[in-house]
């Protein structure tokens, strides 16, 4: 079943003014339950607009947005509920922490949902575990934590709302390789155990290749590529032409193929090493 569905969605900023921008054009999309979907695209390609449409922050100029089976704009007064179903972790979320303790910060979402104390406590504990936030930090001020810890607290805050779909904008930006693997590995584990759908927006082709089940490429307000990482990254020249990148390993495979050694579609180092090993 599709957890998020866009049907014929258009979004136009500043409609009927000289500054009109047609940010998304006739988008049809189903995001499958329990998958990690990656969205890549050049700055200005429509990625953020799409995220804000799914979360109900923007209302489509035309077309429909479905989250968990229902049209989110059918009853505009209830739009707030969509934000509990589609949880968004913004870019650099560590700058949005505000509460006095880590616990209170993570509990903010569940409290707004009107849950009772015990349920809140349970949710906070579970969310902290998924996001790798150690229990001993719970009573500390979030401002005393390191950047990586703060990022994980912010992530826990959204997980605590137990959304149907978790949307993350550049979740690993600015982290070192160890920190990236912590965050992305934690998300993978969360997806596997809870079955939550995850949408990741990122510029890191290596991370996308390693962690996503499906990748969408946006350009100029349209989805121009859609498929598994190997299929998408095999469209090497198209991606480069769009000002995007491919994993370095995919470039190596392309260079080998020009030299008569064809490895097929390659986007991870492990797979490339296995394919080359078959040749000797």
């Amino acid at each position, binding site marked *: 079943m599709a957890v998020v569905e866009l049907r014929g969605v258009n979004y136009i900023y500043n409609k009927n003014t000289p500054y009109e921008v047609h940010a998304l054009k006739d988008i049809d999309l189903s995001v499958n339950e329990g998958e990690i979907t990656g969205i890549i695209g050049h700055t200005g390609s429509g990625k953020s607009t799409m995220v804000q449409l799914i979360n109900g922050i923007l209302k489509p100029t035309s077309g429909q947005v479905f989250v968990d089976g229902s049209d989110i704009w059918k009853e505009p007064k209830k739009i707030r509920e969509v934000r509990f179903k589609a949880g968004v972790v913004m870019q650099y979320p560590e700058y949005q922490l505000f509460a006095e303790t880590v616990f209170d910060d993570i509990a903010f979402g569940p409290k707004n949902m009107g849950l009772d104390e015990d349920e809140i406590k349970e949710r906070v504990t579970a969310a902290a575990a998924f996001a790798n936030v150690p229990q001993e930090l719970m009573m500390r001020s979030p401002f*005393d934590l*390191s950047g990586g810890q703060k990022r994980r607290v912010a992530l826990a805050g959204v997980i605590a709302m137990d959304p149907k779909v978790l949307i993350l904008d550049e979740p690993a930006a600015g982290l*070192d*390789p160890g920190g990236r693997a912590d965050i992305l590995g934690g998300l993978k584990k969360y997806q596997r155990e809870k079955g939550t759908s995850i949408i990741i927006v990122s510029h890191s*082709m290596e991370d996308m290749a390693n962690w996503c089940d499906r990748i969408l490429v946006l350009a100029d307000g349209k989805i121009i590529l859609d498929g598994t990482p190997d299929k998408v990254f095999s469209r090497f020249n198209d991606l480069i032409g769009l000002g995007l990148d491919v994993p*370095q*390993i995919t470039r*190596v495979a392309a260079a080998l193929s020009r030299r008569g050694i064809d490895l097929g579609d390659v986007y991870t180092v492990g797979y490339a090493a296995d394919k080359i090993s078959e040749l000797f």
Partner: protein
Amino acid sequence: MNEIELKNVSFAYPGDETNPPVRALDNVSLEIEKGSFTAILGHNGSGKSTLARIMCMLDTPEYGSVIIDGRDMTADGITEKDVLDARRKVGMVFQNPDNQIVATIVEEDVAFGCENLGIPSAEIRRRVDEALETVGMTKYARHAPHKLSGGQKQRVAIAGVIAMRRECIIFDESTAMLDPMGRREVLETIDKLNEEGITVVLITHYMEEATRADRVYVLNDGRVLTSGTPSDVFSDPETLWNASLDVPQTTELLYKLRQRGLDVPLDVFDPEKCAKVIRDALKKKKTADGA
């Protein structure tokens, strides 16, 4: 001749009632040669940014010496004016493009630093035009900065530093928040500045970016874990992995193939060259196995 030299530098952030002091740098020594390109790698919290602040003399080390352009800034008898003079040799470009733009018009933003230095306005005009030309932003001189892309904003920030005629520029993860195109633009600008003789220190998490440096320093827990040419440093992937860092994907592939018995070097960072060494090694192996 060194632009910057650190000798046995240690630095700690003071603690308070709830938190103990944090030792950020522990006996760090390094040399940044004039006109060179140095990359500094290290995981979050390894001390990279503290190191940058000390090299710009925004912070003073607890122990050890900081030598800028041949003068020991930690020696006795150094006056405030000496420090000010030295500070004017080293500039810094930060991570977030939105936090370093102050004016509402691009060229005014580039001029801001020079104005504070009290440079005559005709001279500022000349420097600003030249700096915008260098970073390829002349076309945008009269634009509003908030409408530019991340890469363009970073280039405006760089122009501001160039206009102040810094001999050395430290880039503290200046590409971290940019998309691939923005990164490419900024890296090309950095390469160009280095070719024109400016000393470059690039602090980064992207291993591929470090491969273009003359020299790489790897920091771990406030100490220099390893240093050398990119070839030296990346030829030992295990050390980097243990410090929760990475190596370029080319090196990782070659390392895996070598473990399985293919005779390839590890210090090849260009995808084309990497493909070539793999093809040659496969050929050689086939001939050897056939013989």
